[in-house]
């Protein structure tokens, strides 16, 4: 059986989530491995969410926010950028593949980009294989 | 307790839920035992408590609100905690319906000292939500087999508003009886309230029970206790004759886990009932 990764998507309400909607309404095809959680802003994402997701069995985490400068709250994603960059370095030094965490800026009008990113990320995670390090055995 | 292991709860079923107050955050749960022998082993006296146990949420120590004279079930009046610290067990319990199953560990702790209370006049003073084990005591004493063992019984019970009074049906029944004097008061009444208004300490002063051969049993919020005690001292009650029940954070309930101590006493196994004289010997660490 081929490996079907579980990917957690955390999307900002104003841009990426709407972008995902657009991808859906325009009937774009993208892999079903992604399960999306909506948050109000990418800066609402507590890095512990990411650690927890990996512990609970996510093979990859995809985070979507507004393009820098477009944040609904003006600066949220600028903080998030710094924070998530640090999180990525932490995961990397702990020994996880940094490629399992990806941050993308996807606007409400970029349904295409959303589908592409998901496609690309899913392939990437498939290549990386199952995430077993942080995962808590069932 | 199940399997003689004091840490394992026995299964009970919720057979009745009564919403006690108009704020909907205090309910009385009636539990029936799922195993007959558990019921037989669960011998308790008023004042004792038990750990309500929900797997996945934890345990919560709650005073037993029913009287041992009531057969076939136990009752607990539970407030949904969570204003400051999330009350995992109490909120889970509040979300359950009749027929639901939880665990019970007990009975735990000491009780109101029934032998000490015998042949004495009893003044029961309660405030707000802390009336639960007092209700157990009152119902125990009022039972036809027990009533003759006690002298005059006076109940002074107050709540902030009429809607916050617990056990309204029973309060009404007590009003009608002539072998118990019941004084119910609220801090502030509403348009339908025809009873007394006033704070518990003031009402105590007014009722002025005689200290002669009398024991006062007092439970309530700290602020009520603080102002009620001087009233009883003024009336001439000795510290041996004033009883109260303490609350502390508990986990095991059997004096092992080491967190509910006040001085060298564990509230869970040496208490929760203490006389004022006993408390005076302990450090103020609660």
């Amino acid at each position, binding site marked *: 059986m081929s490996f079907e990764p579980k990917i957690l998507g955390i999307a900002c309400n104003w841009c990426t989530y709407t972008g995902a909607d657009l991808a859906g309404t325009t009937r774009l095809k993208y892999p079903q491995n992604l399960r999306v959680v909506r948050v109000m802003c990418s800066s609402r994402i507590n890095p*512990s969410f990411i650690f927890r997701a990996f512990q609970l069995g996510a093979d990859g985490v995809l985070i979507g926010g507004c393009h820098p400068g477009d944040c609904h709250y003006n600066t949220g994603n600028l903080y998030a*950028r710094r924070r998530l960059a640090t999180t990525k370095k*932490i995961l990397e030094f*702990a*020994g996880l593949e940094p490629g399992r965490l990806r941050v993308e800026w996807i606007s409400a009008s970029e349904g295409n980009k959303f589908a592409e990113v998901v496609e690309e990320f899913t392939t990437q995670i498939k290549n990386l294989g199952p995430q077993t390090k942080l995962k808590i055995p069932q | 307790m199940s399997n003689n292991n004091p840490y394992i709860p026995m299964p009970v079923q919720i057979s009745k839920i009564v919403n006690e107050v108009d704020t909907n955050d205090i309910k009385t749960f009636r539990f029936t035992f799922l195993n007959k022998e558990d019921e037989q082993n669960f011998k308790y006296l008023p004042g004792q408590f038990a750990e309500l146990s929900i797997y996945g949420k934890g345990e919560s120590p709650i005073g037993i609100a029913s009287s041992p004279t009531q057969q076939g079930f136990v009752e607990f009046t539970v407030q949904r905690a969570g204003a400051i610290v999330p009350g995992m067990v109490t909120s889970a319990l509040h979300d359950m319906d009749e027929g639901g199953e939880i665990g019970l560990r007990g009975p735990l702790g000491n009780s109101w000292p029934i032998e000490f209370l015998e042949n004495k006049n009893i003044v029961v003073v309660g405030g707000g939500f802390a009336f639960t084990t007092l209700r157990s005591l009152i119902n125990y004493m009022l039972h036809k087999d027990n009533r003759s063992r006690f002298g005059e019984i006076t109940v002074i019970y107050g709540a902030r508003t009429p809607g916050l009074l617990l056990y309204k049906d029973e309060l009404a029944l007590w009003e009608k009886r002539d072998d118990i004097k019941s004084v119910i008061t609220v801090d502030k009444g509403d348009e339908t309230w025809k009873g007394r208004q006033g704070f518990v300490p003031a009402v105590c002063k007014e009722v002025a029970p005689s200290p002669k051969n009398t024991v006062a049993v007092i439970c309530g919020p700290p602020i009520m206790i603080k102002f009620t005690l001087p009233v009883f001292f003024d009336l001439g009650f000795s510290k041996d004759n004033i009883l109260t029940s303490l609350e502390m954070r508990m986990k095991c309930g059997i004096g092992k886990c080491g967190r509910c101590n006040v001085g060298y006493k564990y509230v869970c196994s040496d208490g929760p009932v203490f006389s004022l004289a006993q408390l005076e010997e302990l450090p103020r660490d609660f």
Partner: protein
Amino acid sequence: MTDFKKIEENLKKESKRLLEAGDVTVVLAYGKGFDESHPMPYAAKAVADVENIVFNEYCNYNMARYLVRYPQGTKIAIAVKAADSRAVIVLIQEEKVKRENLVILGIPVQGMKNPKTGEIIDSKTTCGMYNPVLYDLLLGEEVHGSKSASPYEVLMEYEKMDKDARWEFWKKELDKCIRCYACRKACPMCYCDPCFIDQSKPKWADKAPQSPGNMMYHLTRFQHLAGRCIDCGECSRACPVGIPLYLFHKKVAKECEEMFKQQAGMSIEDKPVLVDFRVEDSDKILE
């Protein structure tokens, strides 16, 4: 080498002066312990307390840890070594203390020792600086000339490791954790109440010292200290089971420095890098 006796004298002299004049209500310094090689953190609150003050090569404690224990507005004098002064700076940046309420007694020092091992403490486990960054009074001669190695040099070996080997290394180390929380309690930057790990809703991890919970606790703690850790090494020194937490903190500090071009706790004009941003931050850091 540092003249410890001289610093002790100065420390006593200045503490006495400050307490006598009423300029401060408490002096946070080092005091006598149960023997010479075990001094303790000490809070002198009266002139009579000053005689208990000591300073020797075992006074590793970062006294900045105790600043948040006093109510805002308390006038405090605090003895700081190099890293400690940086901790004070971060606390000022984060508005936990106000600069005007502090009298900072700077101690330039070289040759501090770990009382458990007797080893000299240097840039391997701490920031390796000798001179305080911020002070009102300097209690000894600044240390110059002996250039210390980069605090990040020790990381090389671990950065070169294969990621799987690094994971094994950290898993083994963090599995030792007994969750006594000495690391967070010794840390001057860990002042949250309650700490995320003590929350019951959401409950981030089990209380028992097991692998997943330990991982969650430490990874999150590394994150929470990103851009704030000033590399005083107290967490690792406090750890009873010897987890080299300093390595991870150093790595995060190094990455932050490279990404955001700012070292933690170097100026009270700065903000900690993660509560700050630049519009021109590059998306490259996310790659």
